[in-house]
């Protein structure tokens, strides 16, 4: 047998720190193994084609020939056309942007008669994918508004004093009109893009500030990317931590085989290990509960209950500021058939607020519906009904295609699909 290791040739520290899923194929391209880029793999001698895929869909590849007893490291390289022109653009290009869905765009193949029920179809404002934007003029004026508080207890209000909380706008790649805002904790809880004639977009702003880091955690915040899509602006939130972000994007972009491996990598994560030990004193050593939450959602989607072990309870109990600990634990218990525990946990969600992740809202609403029918006359039914009534509008107007919870509505306390007629008097940053 021979031993093979991998190194992915990126330039930025962030990308080099990432563990990517790797596929090892024989020279006729039949799949022999899937592994992680930080693993070593035992293989019979032979020639292998090795590839790794970024969350955005670019491939790093190389071919290697192994003799009996060899121990080698194969360097994986991007195709020349995929190499980022700037080191600082690697994360947006290789994690945030979606290159996987439309690799084969032919031009000028318009056919009449396409559309629902035979009606002509038109490409919507959100139809553009990937990096290439249309050359259409930028959308009209819009305004960014910040909110603080918990919408589930009626405590969400706008942030009156903007300047300490708005980070400077930075250009986003080379996309005309697009910009990024980087929020670090402590930060507002929700951001809104309001544009007359459009239903305002709202997105929660996940954050994590451990006591040990005092007032600043560079990896505990998020990036907000605002970019023109036809005549409207889109809003997308990315976690600052690339490990969390890569898990979310593999899930979002139909790369389930890669998500599966990435989730297994989380099994080796030190935080996961600490939480499994179930000793309360260990909670201050947890480095990134947001990654733990992203890992848990991935494992739930893959229904990999074995790797969820026993740590979801600690994720819920140790981090009372993290709303997602509740739907994760509840869904885990529900899958195990422990419904009383699941419902009891769910009913604590209003204390914490809206989940950061759209999966959390989806699981919570689905299970509350389930329990209202399973226990129609239970003692907890009124509380379950009340919570479901509160969450249902968010589910109705949520964009479940986005990993971070995003929904429409002029007032984030009352989601709706109604377009805004004109700017309200709330303070905001116009652009």
């Amino acid at each position, binding site marked *: 047998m021979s031993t093979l290791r991998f190194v992915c040739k990126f330039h930025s520290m962030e990308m080099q720190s990432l563990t990517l899923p790797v596929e090892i*194929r*024989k*020279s*006729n*391209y*039949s*799949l*022999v193994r899937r592994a992680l880029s930080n693993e070593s793999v035992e293989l019979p001698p032979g020639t292998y084609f090795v*590839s790794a895929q970024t969350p955005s869909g670019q491939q790093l*590849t190389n*071919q290697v020939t192994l003799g009996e007893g060899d121990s080698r490291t194969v360097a994986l390289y991007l195709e*020349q*056309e995929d190499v980022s022109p700037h080191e600082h653009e690697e994360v947006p290009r290789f994690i945030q942007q979606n290159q*996987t*869905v*439309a*690799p*084969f*765009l*032919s031009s000028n*193949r318009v*056919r009449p008669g*396409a*559309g*629902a*029920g035979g*009606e002509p*179809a038109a*490409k919507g404002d959100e*139809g553009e994918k990937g990096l290439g934007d249309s050359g259409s003029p930028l959308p009209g004026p819009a305004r960014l508004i910040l909110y603080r508080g918990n919408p589930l207890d009626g405590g969400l209000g706008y942030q009156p004093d903007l300047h300490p909380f708005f980070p400077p706008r930075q250009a986003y790649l080379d996309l005309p009109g697009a910009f990024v805002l980087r929020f670090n904790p402590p930060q507002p809880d929700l951001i809104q893009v309001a544009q007359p004639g459009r239903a305002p977009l709202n997105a929660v702003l996940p954050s994590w500030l451990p006591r040990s880091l005092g007032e600043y955690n560079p990896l505990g915040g998020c990036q907000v990317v605002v970019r023109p899509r036809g005549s409207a602006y889109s809003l997308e939130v990315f976690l600052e931590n690339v490990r969390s972000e890569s898990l979310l994007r593999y899930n979002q972009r*139909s790369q*389930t*085989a890669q998500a*599966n491996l990435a989730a297994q990598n989380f099994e080796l994560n030190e935080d996961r290990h600490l939480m499994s030990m179930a000793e309360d004193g260990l909670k201050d050593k947890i480095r990134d509960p947001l990654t733990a939450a992203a890992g848990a959602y991935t494992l739930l*989607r*893959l*229904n*990999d209950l074995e790797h969820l072990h026993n740590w979801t309870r600690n994720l819920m109990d140790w981090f009372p500021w993290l709303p997602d600990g509740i739907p994760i634990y509840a869904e885990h218990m*529900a*899958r*195990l*058939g422990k*419904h009383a525990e699941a419902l009891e946990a769910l009913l604590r969600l209003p204390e914490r607020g809206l989940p950061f992740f759209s999966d959390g*809202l*989806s699981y919570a*609403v*689905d299970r509350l*519906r*389930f329990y*209202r*029918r*399973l226990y129609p006359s239970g003692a907890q039914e009124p509380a379950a009904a009340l919570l479901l009534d509160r969450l249902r509008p968010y*589910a*109705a*107007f*949520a964009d*479940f*295609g986005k990993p971070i919870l995003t929904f429409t509505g002029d007032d984030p306390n009352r989601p*709706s*699909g109604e377009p805004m007629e004109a700017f309200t008097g709330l303070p905001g940053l116009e652009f």
Partner: protein
Amino acid sequence: MTLVLDNRPALGGDPGLHALICGISAYTHLPSPGEPETPHSLKLRKLASTALSAYRVYRWLVDRRERLALPLATVRLLLAPSPQEISAEPGLAALVGSCTLNDFLAEAAAWRKDAAAHPDGAALLYYAGHGAQRTRNDAVLLMQDFGDGIGSDLRNAANLNSIFYGMAPSNEFPFIAQTQLYFIDACRDFLPAFSKYDPDDATPVFNIPQTTADTRCAPIYFAAAPGTQAQSVAGEGTLFSRALLACLENDAAEFVEIEGEDRWRVSVHSLDKALAQVMAGLNDELLTAQDYGMGGQIKEGAICDLDAPPQVKVRLEVVPEEALPLTHISVLDEQGHPLPPLPEPLEPHPYETTWTAGMYTISAVITPSHPHYVSRPGAPRPVMPPFYVKKVKVAP
């Protein structure tokens, strides 16, 4: 006509695949396109190709039964086609039936009972018709008698959620099939008219059971991403059904080594990945904007095999385009044999062709030499379905 295939006696209790396929175009109480709305139609209209799509999925299952991961045990078919669909597909005529709420509830119950016979069995639900979003994993499915004005407006609609949880292992159904494939070929936008209704008014398909440990492989392939609409081409089928069949037939195949044997196989994960790509390709071709989405419990599992290597749509592009007259592209297959010569220059540009899946080496030679461009010797690269795009960059 409902139970259109019953292979249970031949299987003799061995596990098999139980399919429930529903396609509704002829909504009895909805107006046709161009007709005035009715009081309970909620601005919805009859559809043009959903029953046809369901029929094609049924035909694929029956025609390709030898390639399925499990033997095909039963197929229940509920089709409510439009006259135009019957004209376009004569095979539909013998299978015309109805898919009212009662029809669906009765057939779903029988389908679950069959699926509950063996944990190593599999269940498949394909639904094509009107629908609306509830959550990432849930939707409301509108039955043929939707909009009849009797009772709640959502009475003749079914909760996907109740189907999904009702198919989970439970005290009542401890041996239910552990592999369940759901295909929901319907819109998932939130209908503005629904804002005045409680979506929970939709009819539960099953009693909610006290579910036990749920380790199912139960992916839900949604034709449309949450909040978006599904599209179709009249007379040709829904975009999703076209993408799904293309994927099952060719585009989702991956080459895997199983117990020492190399096979082309479609799996839960490979279908997910390919559907996203093929739907994007169809959007580009038809100028539509339908985003496919995935929900449920997405464990890996085999769906079907291919009996020959798949074909790959290939696109070759020389960058920069100004170098095209000087760029000569040559391609070697995995044995090192040259492919038939490509046009010189490579026109129409970008050049599109179809190759059999495999390893290929694509090289570019600049002749005569030019100070602004360089030749690019190739390295072997996998060319796998559904698409392969190669930008041959000849700028230094």
